[in-house]
């Protein structure tokens, strides 16, 4: 169940189909780029939840947990030719007050189309009118907010938002096609770490993570007349390094204490990103769709802010 709303029970799921997002942030952490960070989506769901809970008739409804199915993601990059590095395409800023060109603040952007399955939490089952109200409000509200820094430019034409009760979640699978779902691949990371430790006992998870980004060119015989390419990723599916949350690196400051914090209403803390492995999976390959939802979790004793799948 949800970590935030542990006192409420999950009564169903809402699918928001084919959300077109433009100019979303494509830099997911200091080390990874290409697809927005998962926290960009869990944050958007939390914002949506806050707005939904203010609607008459939906006061006790909360949203948490999000499955991210990506139909299309175009990173705004340029590559002079194959074998060259990719560079992000930048935007020109308005002139400064003296009419001179403003400096370019480098950023990475992407246009993407995603479907999201979001968990609905309430004390009680929803009436039919409530479900309809929820669908309509979610449809409008999601278009009025940002997701991962990008603007929402539209939803699926025919059935943008649909609701299913908790046990029927697998009926969403055909609606998610064609897309890939981002899931967590801790198991693969552990397996790779163990594989590396068999050769080198000092190997850590970080080595495993680096290993997934490495291609080994190995000669097939001692003369080196033919070579083959090996990677630990082989046979494990579509693995990608992803940030999965933040580790606090300073004491937590009370609200309003930290200088130039973005918000003075809440406590703040300096953090840095934590990495793990993720895996893109075709929806039909996921045994239980409910296990592919990402939840926000806060571990106070270790200062960890994590996104993870549900453990049960």
């Amino acid at each position, binding site marked *: 169940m949800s970590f935030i709303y542990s006192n409420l029970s999950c009564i169903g799921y809402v699918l928001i189909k084919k959300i077109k997002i*433009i*100019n979303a942030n494509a830099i997911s952490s200091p080390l990874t780029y290409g697809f927005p960070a998962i926290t960009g989506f869990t944050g958007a769901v939390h914002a949506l939840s806050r707005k939904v809970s203010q609607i008459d008739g939906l006061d006790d409804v909360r949203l948490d947990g999000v499955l991210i199915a990506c139909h299309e993601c*175009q990173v705004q990059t*340029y590559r*002079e*030719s194959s074998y060259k590095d990719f*560079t992000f*395409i*930048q*935007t*020109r800023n*308005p*002139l*400064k*007050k*003296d*009419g001179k060109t403003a400096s*370019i603040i*480098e950023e990475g952007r992407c*246009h993407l189309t995603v479907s999201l399955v979001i968990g609905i939490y309430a004390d009680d089952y929803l009436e039919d009118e409530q479900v309809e109200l929820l669908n309509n409000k979610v449809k*409008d509200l999601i*278009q*009025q907010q*940002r997701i991962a820094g990008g*603007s*929402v*430019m*539209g939803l699926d034409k025919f059935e943008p938002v649909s609701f299913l009760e908790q046990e029927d979640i697998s009926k969403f699978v055909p609606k998610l096609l064609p897309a890939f779902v981002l899931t967590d691949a801790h198991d693969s990371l552990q397996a790779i770490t163990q594989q590396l430790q068999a050769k080198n006992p000092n190997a850590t998870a970080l080595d495993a993570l680096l290993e997934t980004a490495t291609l080994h060119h190995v000669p097939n015989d001692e003369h080196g007349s033919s070579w083959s390419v090996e990677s630990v990723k082989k046979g494990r599916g579509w693995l990608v390094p992803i940030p999965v949350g933040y580790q606090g690196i300073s004491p937590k400051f009370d609200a309003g204490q930290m*200088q*130039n*914090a*973005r*918000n*003075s*209403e809440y406590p703040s803390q300096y953090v840095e990103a934590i990495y793990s492995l993720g895996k893109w999976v075709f929806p039909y390959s996921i045994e239980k769709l409910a296990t592919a939802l990402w939840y926000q979790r806060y571990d106070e004793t270790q200062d960890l802010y994590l996104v993870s799948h549900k453990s049960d």
Partner: protein
Amino acid sequence: MAKNDLKTASVLAFERVLDISDAFFWQKDSQDKESKTSIVTVQEKSVRGTISNRLKNAIANNLVKLDPETQKANLQKVDASSLDESNDTLVAKFTCKVLPFTGKPNVCNDQDYQQALMAVVQDYQQNQGVGELAKRYATNIVNARWLWRNRVGAETITVMVSFNDDALMFNAKDFALNTFNHDDKDLAQLAKWIESGLTGEKFVILSVVAYAKIGYGQEVYPSQELILDTGNKKSKVLYRVGDVSKNHAGMHSQKVSNAIRTIDDWYPDAKFPIAVEPYGAVTTLGVAFRQPKQKQDFYSLFDNWVLKGEVPDINQQHYVMGVLIRGGVFGESGKE
């Protein structure tokens, strides 16, 4: 807290209220009713240019040196985009989302300041309303200013704006670019839609299509990409929207929205409308029309209004609100 103790928040940012999509370029034939719309593509060209830049005096005055200099091949690789020879009409589409304008900042780390700010915006909404701004945004949609260079030389331009099940048709050339005094029933209707979106009465997303008749095979002008460190392979890269392998030509959302918010003719000695920018900067002219020393720039007007309660005249109020609708980061770090 007394009003005089208010300070601009060090972290203060507004989200854009008019959320505009990329414009997609399509094409069709105006002479053939049956003609299907197809995409406009971006193609790479390799051209042999001429030497046409100004030469150093020493070379220009010396015939012996000048001849070999001008005979050098100036080889270039550029992107270009044009209609097919069987099509004469550029069809450009984008959508414009109008979000509620409440004056609430996206982030603000000073609650007292935020309250003062929101009071100012609410006061504006009650006394002036957003009708004037809505009308100006509407005008810029229907006069097809957002086609930029594609507008120049077009024989006719029809703009169609649809919202839910309603649609309005405009002849873009009926609406002059330098005035906002047009009296038109449909324009007023469009302005109403935008106004109802700004006040949060309805959720408004407008879909805009322009049909510009510019001639068979004529060149069109998508946005140019800003690429750092390209080496010197290609000197101009145009914007490809969507699937890169299709080379579908398009215009950046930033460029379209700059045209839509070209409503500011309230700057000192105004001759033509410019885009709403904190310093009235116009990139193509390399000029900032609202210099801080004239105290007519956004920050001077805004700070005086929120912090000192000095209400600017009505036109400057529209301008300040226009900047907030545009969005941006306006915090004061204390180092200025």
